């Protein structure tokens, strides 16, 4: 059986996690699309912590009926792995975007260099200035 104290501690931990996540979303410091996975994690852990009979049953299925809290740890680790994997995909996208932006900036700056080099000597030339204005 799951010791009651572990259930209480886990429930408090999960509730705290949920509170922090909600607070971060409210303060716009966590985008909803990244928060979703965290919310699912928090809710799942809270359910597993409070639903003691369920935890015992699942532990029995998986052959760790003598120590059901192992299921809590296993679930927590699984969700952490899921979140990390999600971050890796986000990071990969960000890296690609970052490279694209840097390239774009460099190419645009090269164009500006050319434009400025062209513009400087013709500033005294009224025809060119008129053309540019027109």
């Amino acid at each position, binding site marked *: 059986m799951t010791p009651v104290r572990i259930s209480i501690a886990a429930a408090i931990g999960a509730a705290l996690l949920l509170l922090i996540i909600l607070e971060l979303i409210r303060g716009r410091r966590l985008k909803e699309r990244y928060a979703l996975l965290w919310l699912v994690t928090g809710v799942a852990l809270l359910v597993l912590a409070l639903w003691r009979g369920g935890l015992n049953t699942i532990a029995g299925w998986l052959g760790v009926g003598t120590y059901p809290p192992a299921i809590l740890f296993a679930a927590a680790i699984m969700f952490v792995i899921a979140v990390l994997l999600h971050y890796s995909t986000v990071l990969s996208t960000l890296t690609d975007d970052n490279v694209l932006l*840097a390239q774009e900036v*460099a190419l645009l*700056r*090269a164009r500006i260099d*050319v434009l400025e080099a062209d513009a400087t000597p013709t500033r005294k030339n009224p025809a060119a200035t008129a053309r540019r204005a027109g």
Partner: protein
Amino acid sequence: MTSIVAVVPAFDEEAAIGAVVEEIRAVDPLIDVVVVDDGSTDGTADVARAAGAAVVRLPFNLGIGAAVQTGFRYALEHGYDVAVRLDGDGQHDATELPKLLIPLGRGEADVVTGSRFRGGDDAYRPPLGRRLGITWFARLVSILSGQKVTDTTSGFQALNRDAIALFARDYPSDYPEVEATVLLLKHRLRLVEVPVRMREREHGSSSITLLRSIYYAIKVTLALLVAMARRSAVPSEGSPR
């Protein structure tokens, strides 16, 4: 008249870059030179500009693959017919450049690679570790692509518009040449190798030391298999065009 641009990636090469640019211009003054300064902390950009090159300065170091790709994007944006890639350290001999242009001019190839091993360069004897690596990748790429390739690590390449468009869109990152070879063959572009001489590096040391070449071999082999297994060779999302 075909317009040609030489793409020269350079990272902290102020000692070599001037000579590289001047040499290309000496071979053919009609070839435009664009130096892609990959976030150098020295005077690479100024030296290159003084030597008569256009300079594209990346705001920070992106690595060789992304730097070369920047050059190809430059070539694409400015509508060049042909882009030639030479390294900024001077190891590629610009006087060999016309050899690379011949198969392109005849329309026989989309990409021409200067190979150190296709009977051209008897003097080129890289250290054992690197020779093994080069042979390994040549075999692997030949098997994967079904075309005999002798030098997959050579960055001395000439590209026509189709190849420029492909590489501007999608180019591998860290040690790009091997993967790029697979990529272009996967896109059914025609690759031709011509024998060239290459020089010892004029300044600095090669970025590939023995320990790193082992890491390199493993990493690139994985990347190759991933490249072959990728659903689409060209990412549709986030592509510049």
